[in-house]
């Protein structure tokens, strides 16, 4: 039994909470309106007449403005992404499965449909056949074509045997509407297991621990870098390049492998090109960076959010709001990437429990001066 005074306070809190929930619901309805408006604006860029449509429309207008100067060159298009689902088998963890299915439903509901969907890696948690096959089955429900990328959680049980059997090559390139796309396998690790005589499962478990220092740092590796150099040899330097890599293709925080050990060498191969964008997974958060000509964007996870690294966070990153531990889909989501005529991209993070966060090409191009994303109220500790 609580003392009477506390009982009273508790009642007050509960009352306030109810009011707050009501407000939240109202806000949600406003947001629904905005979502519809966004769909319209995607169909007819430049349609800004209804500026007073919602109270917070400034962000939206910026997106439209950013799209305007870039309509020269290639034809703009959109692709979507889902990433880092970390599936266990359904009998063990049904929630992660449900969350991937939610992302698939999100993408299937996009109107117009994206040109294709990137799956950003870490489909499985421990690369078990049951996990990878379950993931493959769920991803089959996506209406648009799917481009697969591999993550370390898919790889280190059988070093990619089953993944390759299910999804094909771990690194490849393709062209789409004037943009050259490259998917890398950036989570190779130097052999730390043979000397210690570890079983495949022990190896997988070590790699699956983000803060497990017994593993090696991620790298693209020499063989793949040679392939990349050959692949880029015949591409004109003015062709926009978009690279997919599971780990960020720069060095952020080594203790969590927010890191690619040969990042500088890969960046050097990309440097001669005018317009390069890297889309990466692994970090489970809103993450933006720019190094010279290269823009970097992270992807959201559908399984759980990671905290921001205690050091090395790029200056251009506008943090997502700190996830609420009492809500298990907080900080999660999927998103879309608008490829502009210039080949630069506007990135939209569709957070499931919050307004979406936009990081535009203009923001990164201007080094953070223009088109600044909405600032978070609760940064990480």
């Amino acid at each position, binding site marked *: 039994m609580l003392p009477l005074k506390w009982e009273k306070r*508790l009642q007050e*809190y509960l009352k306030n*909470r109810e009011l707050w929930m009501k407000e939240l619901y109202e806000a949600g309805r406003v947001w629904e309106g905005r979502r519809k408006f966004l769909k319209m604006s995607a169909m007819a860029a430049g349609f800004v007449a209804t500026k007073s449509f919602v109270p917070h429309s400034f962000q939206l207008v910026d997106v439209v403005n950013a799209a305007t100067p870039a309509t020269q060159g290639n034809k703009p298009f959109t692709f979507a992404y889902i990433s880092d689902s970390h599936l*266990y088998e359904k009998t*063990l*963890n*049904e*929630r992660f499965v449900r969350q991937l299915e939610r992302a698939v439903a999100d993408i299937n509901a996009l109107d117009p449909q994206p040109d294709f969907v990137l799956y950003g890696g870490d489909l499985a*948690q421990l690369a078990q056949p049951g996990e990878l096959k379950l993931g493959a089955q769920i991803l089959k429900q996506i209406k648009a074509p799917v481009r697969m990328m591999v993550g370390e959680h898919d790889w280190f049980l059988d070093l990619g045997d089953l993944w390759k059997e299910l999804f094909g090559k771990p690194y490849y390139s393709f062209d789409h509407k004037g943009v050259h796309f490259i998917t890398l396998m950036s989570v190779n690790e130097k052999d730390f297991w043979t000397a210690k005589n570890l079983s495949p499962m022990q190896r997988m478990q070590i790699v699956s*621990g*983000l*803060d*497990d220092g017994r593993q090696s740092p991620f790298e693209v590796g020499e063989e793949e870098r040679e392939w990349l150099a050959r692949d880029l040899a015949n591409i004109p330097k003015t062709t926009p390049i978009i690279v997919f890599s599971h780990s960020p293709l720069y060095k952020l925080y080594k*203790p*969590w492998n927010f890191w690619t050990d040969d990042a500088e060498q890969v960046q050097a191969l990309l440097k001669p090109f005018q317009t390069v964008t890297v889309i990466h997974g692994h970090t489970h958060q809103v993450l933006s960076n720019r190094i010279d000509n290269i823009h970097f964007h992270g992807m959201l996870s559908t399984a*759980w*959010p*990671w*905290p921001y690294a*205690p050091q090395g966070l790029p200056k251009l990153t506008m943090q997502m709001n*700190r996830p609420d*531990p*009492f809500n*298990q889909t907080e900080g999660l989501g999927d998103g879309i990437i608008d490829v502009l005529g210039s080949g630069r991209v506007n990135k939209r993070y569709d957070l499931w429990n919050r307004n979406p966060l936009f990081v535009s090409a203009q923001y990164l191009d201007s080094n953070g001066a223009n088109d600044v994303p909405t600032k978070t109220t609760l940064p*990480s*500790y």
Partner: protein
Amino acid sequence: MNKLQWIKLFVITLCVLSSVLFYQSVKAQGPVQLPTHPPAKGDGKSLVVQLCDGETNLEVKGVKPGERLNPDQAQVVSNQLMAQWLAKQPKEVAEAWMKENLTSQQKTTAQTNPNEASTQDQPIDFTARDYQMWKKELDQEVSYGDQIFHDDKLLGSTNGVSCAMCHPHAANTHPETYPKFQIQLRRVALLRDMINWCIENPSRGAKLHPDDPKMRALEAYIMAQRKGTVMEPGKH
């Protein structure tokens, strides 16, 4: 039903009931039994004092059980007990103890010098061995916590979710912000309340008794990761 079947039914019911009762009684005891020193038995007429090793006893003639020793008597008793203990130790242990004890006694004597009167009530220094021992004990606790934090099975998770999956190196656990009011828990939460919340919800496990060795180890690990952080109880 015939007589035999009735008897069978009765026996089965009895078994189930008694096992439930037994389980409840075991559960009620709580998980941790700290070591206790059983009280020494004397002749019942005089007070028996026991040394903290739990083995060495001394009967104090002329003082009845339950009576208080005055400080002088107590000093004599403790000296005698220590002498008894020393006599039982192997030679090298006894010598090492004597050496250490003499050094600290010399220091205490030096401190009683009137010129250093202000430091008179300072305790004797801790030895390197003390620090080493404490560190070892703490490291053990923290490393056990580290293990539980990273192992879903050890934690008792039923869905494969471990603590470290959302909190690498215990990041964003912010133990320095507790205690604080959590509307979702409807009370002021301690770190252990949030640990239990995470065990029960994202990890779908059974919550731990506050004195469970696993809970103590988890708290030790989480706090050790934030060493040097400013305490900010109530921060949201």
